[in-house]
């Protein structure tokens, strides 16, 4: 623990990857990757979805074996044959999806892996857990049942557990992906404290701002190759702005660079259709809407959205956004209040009838309620029209019409799929989102609700999704975007409503100081 936070030039890497290659049937997930990881550093592995980050992690944590190349630990070659071996070497991994048993207490989760014939001393372990947590500046409740804790708390507990097991090399796999912005920031600070104690931290992410904010060293992966790295000195001398630009260049090559930057520029220059909805009758009108829910009941929602207008709904996740979206789409009963689409009340109509009237909902639960993973792309594109002409006639599937529709949409929306018969579940997240967008935006859509439209996507697909949203509005549709990412709302919206605890606490025009006003509404100052 005497290591300084910055390794000297002659510092020895704790773990080194030497030309690691990993092949799976049909693809090369990692292609001859060499990286050194030093103690006292947060080393960020950055890359798009499918760049090979997770494969690299699974080899370091002993879940998979490299096809070629070797892993060195403390300077000697050391195959990591199993998770057990990884733990013994001091390599602890906190996976993207929690690796705690939900039905056990935190103490018992620490006890996983004890010698089976012994009985654990639960009190001693709880005490040790609290001490370890305190030493890195977090708090845990060892007797709490895991499933009762928030994802952020579970993650802290996992880090504490890894330290209790003697980890000196901590891998955080997409650790911030599921966290609220505040918890993500806390995790960032925690990483800084851990490396200050001499640990090596590997932080895997596809968020650039986090990489630049918390990383000492950044390695960029692309299509299974390491395409570049920024050391501590370069990061310092470049400064956050220039470093971000350099990383974008590495991540996406020249094309992607352009796509990402154009998206930004587009957003900045989007002509605001100020007051588009004020003169004419609104397309979608919501009056005193109330929705029942056990955890977050929604009430008093008043919104008017005109043709061509984008209304963003901001708020911390779990403040009733999902409930509101589902009530609008018809997936959840409305308790009170009215919803008008083009002047007609729709709050009592079932889902299908609302869709016919032109109301569309792009869910954020893309694999769960959005698609049927085992069905081919072609059928998923018609999932909400099953049984309707011209794709079905008298209950008989019309293969030709279905295939024509699929081919057209795959082309129009640039869905990268081997074939229209490929099961939708096999596509990447970005392409599943494109499939959903294609399905919901075609036909006679009048009003579209997007729930977290770019959640979990990489930069290219984020840009593509945002472009579609803008096009939908430009085509005269009324658009609602629910998002937890304020930057996204500011880039897209004409007006932004802030939701807190099931209510809209304020609506602001998206002008220069929108960000500050939204912040005030969120923290309750202006409410």
């Amino acid at each position, binding site marked *: 623990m005497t290591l300084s936070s910055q390794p000297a030039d002659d510092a020895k890497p704790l773990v080194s990857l030497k030309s690691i290659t990993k092949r799976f049937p049909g693809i090369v997930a990692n292609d001859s990757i060499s990286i050194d990881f030093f103690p006292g550093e947060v080393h960020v592995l950055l890359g798009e979805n499918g760049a090979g980050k997770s494969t690299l992690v699974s080899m370091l*944590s002993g*879940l998979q074996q490299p096809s070629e190349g070797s892993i060195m630990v403390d300077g000697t070659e050391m195959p990591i044959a199993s998770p057990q071996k990884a733990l013994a070497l001091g390599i602890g991994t906190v996976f993207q999806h929690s*690796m705690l*048993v*939900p039905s056990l207490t935190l103490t018992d989760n620490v006890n996983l*892996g004890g*010698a089976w*014939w012994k*009985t*654990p001393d639960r009190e001693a372990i709880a005490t040790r857990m609290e001490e370890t947590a305190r030493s890195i500046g977090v708090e845990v409740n060892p007797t709490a049942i895991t499933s009762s804790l928030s994802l952020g708390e579970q993650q802290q507990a996992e880090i504490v557990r890894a330290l209790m097991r003697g980890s000196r090399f901590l891998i955080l796999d997409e650790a911030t992906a599921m966290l609220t912005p505040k918890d993500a920031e806390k995790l960032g600070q925690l990483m800084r404290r851990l490396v200050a104690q001499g640990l090596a931290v590997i932080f895997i992410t596809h968020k650039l701002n986090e990489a630049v904010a918390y990383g000492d060293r950044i390695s960029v992966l692309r299509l299974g190759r390491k395409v570049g790295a920024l050391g501590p000195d370069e990061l310092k001398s470049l400064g956050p702005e220039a470093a971000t630009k350099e990383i974008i260049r590495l991540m996406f090559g020249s094309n992607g660079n352009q796509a990402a930057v154009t998206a930004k520029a587009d957003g900045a220059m989007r002509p605001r259709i100020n007051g588009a909805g004020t003169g004419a009758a609104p397309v979608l009108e919501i009056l005193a809407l109330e929705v029942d829910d056990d955890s977050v009941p929604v009430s008093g929602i008043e919104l008017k959205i005109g043709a061509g207008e984008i209304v963003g709904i901001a708020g911390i996740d779990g403040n009733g956004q999902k409930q509101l979206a589902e009530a609008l789409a018809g997936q959840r009963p409305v308790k009170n209040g009215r919803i008008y689409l083009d002047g007609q009340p729709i709050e009592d109509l079932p889902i299908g009838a609302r869709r016919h009237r032109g109301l569309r909902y792009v869910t954020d639960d893309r694999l769960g309620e959005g698609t049927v993973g085992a069905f081919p792309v072609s059928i998923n594109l018609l999932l909400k029209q099953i049984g309707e002409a011209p794709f079905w006639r008298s209950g008989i599937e019309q293969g030709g019409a279905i295939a024509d529709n699929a081919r057209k949409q795959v082309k129009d929306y640039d869905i990268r799929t081997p074939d229209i018969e490929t099961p939708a579940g096999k596509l990447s997240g970005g392409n599943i989102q494109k499939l959903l967008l294609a399905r919901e935006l075609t036909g006679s859509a009048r009003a579209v609700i997007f729930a977290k439209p770019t959640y979990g996507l990489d930069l290219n697909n984020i840009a593509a999704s945002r472009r579609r949203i803008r096009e939908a509005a430009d085509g005269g549709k009324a658009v609602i975007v629910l998002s937890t990412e304020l930057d996204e709302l500011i880039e897209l919206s004409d007006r932004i409503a802030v939701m807190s605890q099931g209510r809209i606490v304020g609506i602001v025009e998206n002008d220069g100081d929108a960000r500050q006003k939204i912040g005030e509404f969120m923290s309750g100052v202006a409410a």
Partner: protein
Amino acid sequence: MTLLTAAFLTALLAGAITAGIPLLLAGLGEQLSEKTGVLNIGIEGMMLAGAYMGFLVAWKTDSVFLGFVGGAGGGMLVAAIMALLCVRFGLNQIVIGIALTLGAEGATAMLHYFQFAQTYPRLGAIASLPIPPLANIPVLGPALFNRPPIVYIALLLVAVFAYVYRKTYWGIALQAAGDKPAALDSSGVSVLGIRSVAVLLTGALVGLGGAFMAIVGAGIFVPFMTNGNGFIGIVLAMLARGRPLWVLGGAAMFGACLSLTTALQVAGVDIPTDVIQMLPFAAVMGVLVMLGRKANLPSALGAAYVRGAR
């Protein structure tokens, strides 16, 4: 109310224990498998194999003790196939479970036909081990405390499992294997190992239950003699979730129903026997309707574990 004599009650209670012990062992066994995420539909077959092997060994060696060892071994033999196919190779647990049950039914019926169908050998009555002074209590004494040692052992197992589940590292590992196998694996414990051991022990427990039916209950082996006891054990385990004491309670209840069937027939109550024989199964359905909703099962139940698969 001439029905409620001491003799009738003693017979009823003793019958409930005799009928309940196989259910208890089946329920405890299934509970162990399910805790680790293996939905063991094959226990009916393991039970039948245990009944056959138990009877065969007891008859050949003239030793009740060796008979029970043989019964446990017979159950484990079938369980070993299950562990190999479902845990190691990750094949569908329901398909294999059904296949094992049907296979064991066929195999034991065939063996019975060649070995015993001409002679129908019987075992003698089993020696009881009275526990003084409890054995002298009226009604309860003869029914509960003047029984063969295997009865006491089975009841003791309830406490043993309750202790194992709540107090030991093994108990934690068992639960993790069923609820989040990947978490257990990344903690350096072999999920396949934990599950294999659990399935084998299930086979031993269930085989013991089958042997009990043949050696203590009937004194003879007849084809299909387990008669759905294994399946009732599955229901018991589902309702009890992780709690051995609940298995005991359920086994006592269903045992009493089964025993009532006999007792009512003996007492000459004027109800068609078909109706009386339906009683335990009607009870199963009744309980399922009332409590089945609450049966929250391990989240990885029925799913083979493959490291790294998503």
